[in-house]
């Protein structure tokens, strides 16, 4: 009996404890069964994706349906102010922590194989916030565009900023243009940052662009269809304009005027955690949740 117990214990130690420690150290996560389970599921899914690629060419939609890692992940970064309030910090402290988390999470997402990440950094409605807060956010954008430029260039990440640029200061606008110009030739990884973005404004500016093209004789009225519309939306800068997964933190369950047109078949994930606390473990959770879904894009399978 004792020898049987020692054999079972040795087996458990060899196959559970040691790999578990190795995995959790690699992930820099607390050692718990949940995190290890998540890691196995993600790794197995990546292995499945590689095997699917080796099987040969498939249609684009079939490939995406079978491919269990999202190509485009959109994130609504909500909860900075509540996070700061809980810790007795000012709003600026919350936003600073949020931006720091933003860069860390972007690096993790790309490392896990996501091609495009969209971040809803500042909505059109956010201009109504107190002036101090708005100024703080703009200053944070300037600071991090400058400081993260070497990282974008080193890891060849294409940066695209979408939104209505009319109200953005000249200094920030200049920096945005500089970053976009410096990274425009990169492929494979793209970070889309939505500043002063509104889903309804996106649809309207697409309508306006099409109207201008008709007026200039470039297209006919009959040519205006869904495809033409999608080619005028601000997400035309991306190879994958429609997000596969949209994450909104802080427990709010709405998309708040973000990617209204583009999110028709997007998986919506609403974790309760506040944005500055949304780390690699929470992102793994979102991915495992996403991979369990059966996406049919509105068709019958």
């Amino acid at each position, binding site marked *: 009996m004792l020898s049987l117990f020692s054999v079972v214990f040795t*087996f458990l130690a*060899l*196959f*559970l404890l040691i*790999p578990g420690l190795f995995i959790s150290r690699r992930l820099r996560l607390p050692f718990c*069964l949940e995190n*290890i*389970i998540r890691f*196995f599921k993600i790794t*197995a899914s990546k292995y499945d994706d590689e095997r699917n690629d080796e099987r040969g060419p498939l249609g684009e939609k079939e490939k995406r349906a079978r491919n269990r890692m999202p190509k485009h992940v959109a994130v609504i970064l909500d909860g900075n102010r509540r996070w700061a309030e809980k810790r007795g910090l000012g709003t600026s402290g919350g936003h600073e922590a949020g931006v720091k988390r933003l860069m860390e999470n972007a690096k993790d997402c790309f490392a896990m194989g996501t091609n495009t990440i969209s971040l809803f950094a500042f*909505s*059109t*409605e*956010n201009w*109504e*916030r107190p002036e101090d807060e708005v100024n703080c956010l703009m200053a944070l954008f300037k600071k991090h565009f400058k400081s993260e430029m070497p990282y974008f260039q080193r890891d060849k990440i294409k940066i695209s900023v979408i939104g209505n640029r009319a109200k953005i200061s000249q200094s920030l606008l200049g920096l945005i243009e500089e970053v976009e110009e410096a990274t425009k030739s990169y492929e494979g990884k793209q970070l889309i940052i939505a500043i002063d973005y509104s*889903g*309804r404004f996106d*649809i*309207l*500016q697409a*309508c*306006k662009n*099409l*109207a*201008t093209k*008709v*007026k200039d004789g470039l297209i006919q*009225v009959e040519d*205006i*269809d*869904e495809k033409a*519309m999608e080619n005028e939306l601000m997400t035309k800068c991306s190879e994958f304009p429609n997000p596969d997964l949209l994450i909104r933190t802080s427990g*709010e*369950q*709405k*998309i*708040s*005027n973000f990617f*209204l*047109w583009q*999110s*028709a*078949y*997007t*998986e*919506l*994930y*609403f974790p309760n955690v506040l944005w500055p606390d949304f780390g690699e473990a929470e992102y793994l959770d979102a991915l495992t949740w996403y991979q369990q*879904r*059966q*996406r*049919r894009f*509105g*068709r*019958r399978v």
Partner: protein
Amino acid sequence: MDLNQSMRLLSSWIAQIGVLGLDLLWRFIHLVVSLCYIVSGIIEAVESYAISLGLNKKYSSINIEKLRCLAVVVDIEEARDVSKVIELLQWLRTIGVKQVGLFDSQGLLKKSKDLILGTVPGSVLSEEIGEKDSSPDQNPLALEFISSSDNKEAVMKAANILLQDHLKSSRPENDKGENFFTETHLNEALRVVGENVHAPDLLLVYGPIRSHLGFPAWRLRYTEIVHMGSLNYMRYGSLLKAIHKFTGVHQNYGT
């Protein structure tokens, strides 16, 4: 040579044992995760039945006035079973919801419109509310039937109307479009096309995935989206819980 062969045999056995061990570990992890999901599902079902039986006092009174318009998105596979949709509408009427928009991407519910209106007591089309001076039912349930054609296709038609207005304007060459392409104008154009532009306060999604499946994008700006699972396993308690949770939500609209 014997030693080499023995070593090769031994390493092959070790590799096979290792693969078997990893396979067992993987299945063990699957088992644990599946058990966790089963347990949480049981807890949810018990809670839902408790709410349905009125055992949970928290859900006995709901401020339904806050929910002016509710939308329900149904997956196309589940929209084929109209009886479930009718049962859901009857529950919503019991709770006190006054306006419901029913959406499925292929318009199956639109085709069953007459059956649904004939079976759900007190239900009328939302377009007919106000047209009839006296209704036998003082609290009718206004229903709207929506499909994918009311989403992008409708926006395209509305965009064409705006384009025609813009081209007809007295000086189109000078006008950059600011006077014709505003949210108000697009709302108006959508109404001309025959679309409802009112944004639902709450969207309940019945299906295998949490996605709005092409519900009219223009209307979803600040809509709360709640995934309710499969329509086949819907529970009155879960529905009540979702509506109650919505009434406690505070909207700050980005400010």
